């Protein structure tokens, strides 16, 4: 009983940081609809800045002043990011901004490395709160008690700000109806900036306030990301009490999980999230999304037509060149091009559901890695011949997509995205922790192709046939009745449902189809690398595909391929340099700002303006 209580206190103390950071994310999302991937970076900056300040500001007063100043400093950084990076792209398609925030992550990572060095720093202890208090005989750190006491003040303060002040009322109004705020004569741009300041400040405070319990390191940005997304989603997007309850719930569950299910702490959080979302699709305190017709923010997408003769000839010529690559190219050029093709197929499969279906999945890596693991497990455990394993990989991944799709289909928009993320993370944590079967993070190795494909060039041709084949299949599907029905379901589910289309089932089928093609790319991947690890199932993997789709142009059929090829080649080139993350981040931000319709969307426009391609009304 005593221990139980003490553990409860530990959980509540841990909830403090989680709440601060997550409430900032929740506010930003609620008002601006931006899924701010860079929020973890703000948190990390808060920790580093707080640490630096604490070195110069002594004593108890100095400690708390440092925390406060760190928060404000990060708030200012948030404002800079908002004005320079996000403001130019508010008019871009929904979720496009997340690409910009991804660029910000990369930039902040390198800047932090440059400023604070590579070593972890241990946070200073809070002066005056170093010891413990015995509560019912159990030791409880004083600082834990301070955190438990402080958090409600933050919650109350935020609640007061949001519900009792004019600014708060505007913020709430903006959460519900952005146009209305504009109609009230409020400068929406500055309101967004203000909210960004508040959200970033909270993240910075969260980073600084956890220093006495840990420290600062360069991996903390990504390490907290999954947890705060989980908190925001469980609590309900935009809900402050929700964020607090969810933060407390997750933290307390985690404390008891550590005691009773020490092996499964990774899985626990995502199980809770999946369960909550299946019972309460909009989180514990979230309101139902007044879902507009998705994917149609900004200029409506243009009609599509299968490629004309000229383009087909060009593509055929390109394919011929690719086929001849082994004749004039080096071994490495084949390997690199294989990698690019595999990645492009993966991105194209996500683009199929995202671009055509308006279904934003944050967990597509589950099917890429899933396909790779199906093949690898078959080879490792039952000694399946490569050909059989290769064939079964897309089927296995498709089956996973079939199940996950069924569970997620009831949700739309960002909630759908979050549920896919939860299931992808579940699969990841299962693979990661079920070492006996999956090899855990040591992965599965020695998964090589059969003798007839052994060697760079034969496997290159194999990749060419299946990779380009898969991309062309996706493309053809886009022009088929199935692709049209998928677009119809996205454009107007009302009309589609009223004309006999079971929109959810179409989307489910598309999700399964895309999943199995992602599985195909995963199978190509595993046999080209000879090994597979849980990294292929990580959030970062899913984001890779997401980023290139937006970078390439979500509203063009070729977006995924163009974006995928550009980013892969750019990365291959840039990683040879010291500050490649900074460079890549800046390039991404630059592309996002000058080409809000993505590379291929913008190229098309430019070409039209200069008369390079004929602008046909209503066609592309």
């Amino acid at each position: 009983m005593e221990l139980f209580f003490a553990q409860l206190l530990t959980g509540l103390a841990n909830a403090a940081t989680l709440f601060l950071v997550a409430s900032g994310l929740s506010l930003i999302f609620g008002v601006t609809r931006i899924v701010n991937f860079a929020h973890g970076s703000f948190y990390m900056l808060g920790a580093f800045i707080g640490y630096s300040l604490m070195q110069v500001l002594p004593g108890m007063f100095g400690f708390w002043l440092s925390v406060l100043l760190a928060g404000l400093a990060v708030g200012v950084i948030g404002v800079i990011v908002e004005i320079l990076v996000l403001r130019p792209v508010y008019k871009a398609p929904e979720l496009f901004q997340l690409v910009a925030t991804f660029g910000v992550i990369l930039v902040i990572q390198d800047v932090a490395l440059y400023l604070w060095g590579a070593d972890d720093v241990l946070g200073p202890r809070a002066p005056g709160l170093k010891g413990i208090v015995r509560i019912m005989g159990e030791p409880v750190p004083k600082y834990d008690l301070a955190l438990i006491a402080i958090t409600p003040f933050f919650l109350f303060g935020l609640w007061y700000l949001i519900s009792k002040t004019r600014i708060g009322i505007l913020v709430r109004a903006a959460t519900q109806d952005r146009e209305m705020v504009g109609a009230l004569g409020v400068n929406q741009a500055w309101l967004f900036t203000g909210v960004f300041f508040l959200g970033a400040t909270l993240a910075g405070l969260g980073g600084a306030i956890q220093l006495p319990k840990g420290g600062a390191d360069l991996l903390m940005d990504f390490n907290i990301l999954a947890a705060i997304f989980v908190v925001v989603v469980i609590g309900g997007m935009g809900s402050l009490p929700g964020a607090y309850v969810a933060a407390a719930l997750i933290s307390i569950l985690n404390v008891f999980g550590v005691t009773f299910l020490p092996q499964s702490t990774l899985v626990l959080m995502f199980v809770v999230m999946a369960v909550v979302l299946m019972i309460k699709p909009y989180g514990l305190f979230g309101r139902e999304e007044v879902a507009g017709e998705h994917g149609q923010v900004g200029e409506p997408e243009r009609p599509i037509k299968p490629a004309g003769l000229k383009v087909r000839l060009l593509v055929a010529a390109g394919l011929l060149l690719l086929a001849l690559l082994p004749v004039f190219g080096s071994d490495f050029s084949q390997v690199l091009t294989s990698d690019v093709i595999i990645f492009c197929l993966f991105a194209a499969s996500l683009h199929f559901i995202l671009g055509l279906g308006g279904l934003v999945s944050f967990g597509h890596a589950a099917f890429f890695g899933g396909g790779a693991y199906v093949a690898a497990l078959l080879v490792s455990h039952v000694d399946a011949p490569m050909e059989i394993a290769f064939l079964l990989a897309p089927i296995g991944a498709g089956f996973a997509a079939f199940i996950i799709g069924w569970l997620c289909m009831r949700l739309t928009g960002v909630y759908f995205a979050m549920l896919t993320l939860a299931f992808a993370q579940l699969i990841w944590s299962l693979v990661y922790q079920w070492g006996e079967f999956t090899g855990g993070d040591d992965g599965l190795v020695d998964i090589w192709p059969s003798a007839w494909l052994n060697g760079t060039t034969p496997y290159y041709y194999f990749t060419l046939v299946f990779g380009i084949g898969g991309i062309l299949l996706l493309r053809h599907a886009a022009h088929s009745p199935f692709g049209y029905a998928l677009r119809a379901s996205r454009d107007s589910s009302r009309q589609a449902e009223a004309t006999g289309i079971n929109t959810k089932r179409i989307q489910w089928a598309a999700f399964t189809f895309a999943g199995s093609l992602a599985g195909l790319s995963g199978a190509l991947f595993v046999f080209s690398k000879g090994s597979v690890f849980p990294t292929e199932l990580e959030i970062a993997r899913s984001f890779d595909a997401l980023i290139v789709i937006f970078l390439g142009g979500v509203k063009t059929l070729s977006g995924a391929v163009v974006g995928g090829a550009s980013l892969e080649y750019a990365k291959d080139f840039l990683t040879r340099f010291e500050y490649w993350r900074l460079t890549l981040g800046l390039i991404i931000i630059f592309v996002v700002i000058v080409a809000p319709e993505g590379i291929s969307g913008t190229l098309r426009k430019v070409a039209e303006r200069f008369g390079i391609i004929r602008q046909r009304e209503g066609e592309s």
Partner: protein
Amino acid sequence: MKIQKLMATALTVAAIGVASISANAADTIKIGEINHYKRMAAFANPYKNGIELALEQINEAGGVLGKPLEFIYRDDQGKPGEAVKIAGELMTRDNTVMLTGTILSHVGLAISSYAAEKKYLYLASEPLADSLVWAKGNDYTFRLRASTYMQAAMLAEEAAKTDAKTYATIAPNYAYGKDAVAAFKTALLALKPDVEFVTEQWPALFKIDAGAEAQAIERAKPDAIYNVTFGGDLAKLVREGTTRGLFEGRHVYGLLTGEPEYLDPLKDEAPEGWVVTGYPWYDLTDKSNKDFVDAYQAKFDEGPKIGSLVGYMTAQSIAAGISKAGSTDTDAMVAAFKGLEVDTPVGQIMFRKQDHQSTMGAFVGTTALQDGKGVMVDWVYKNGADYLPSDEEVMKLRPASQ
């Protein structure tokens, strides 16, 4: 439809590839070094410094086979797939003669498998996973650093000397942590069959909930604690554990805890009285060790980390291997590495024929606070050769040798 753009880009890259091959006509011996320079900067940078120091010395002394030795460093972002791609590029385009590098075990395993498939020599410098030379060992992979098993066995030997009966373990929940706990258990139970492991804690890597872990361990009331956490996790565990009095009156054994990479950030909060493996460079007096430390400090103006030592020894081993082989032919080098003896700062080491593991050992000592920072005292250097299983056992562990 912009697929054609892809093709164009691909062709451009291919063209650059062809051009650069001719430009790279070799008058140096190039080694491909793949690491997580950004993701694990705190570990990779000292490692790279160690290599640079060794290269300087080797090349001043005339290089290898009459040519200068050169390392090409590439960042794999911590992704195994990238590492494999880069490995291919290094070997086919940059004309490197062999591969080395990586800290993370899974990346090491990916390169190892690739090396075996393509018949390239790979010297795994830092990854610790036992499977690299045993379960997944292959003919083309060698490993330098003392493995998880070896270091855990050294700590178990120390633990067996005490009268502690009940043990708690805490290790990050991934392959390295699991290997480290399993090895410690096996080794300790072999020495002292009556010890009991009362709780096993498995925090997620870099996501430790230290307060909860401390409570969970306290709940089991163990006589001794075996710690495998490192980095930020270790810092949090030490702080929460110390605050809550978890370590009072208990024996604590810490794998790698004494390595400067992990001990230095703890500053004046470094735990005292833990028995750890690590690298007490500040305390080394024998000539070979001291020479290395002095040279390193002179060049980089800071103390070496364990990574620096491993990097230095990596370059030394490669130079020795190629010299012994007399050529950069892979088969010759593989043959040369088998049984290769290298004189290093920690003494002579040997790459074993039976499992390709080097006999590099580890320093085992007790942590203490000196001048506001953690150090190892009462340390001894334990030779790795004494902590490896017998040849028959290795045969069983290593399918590749059968």
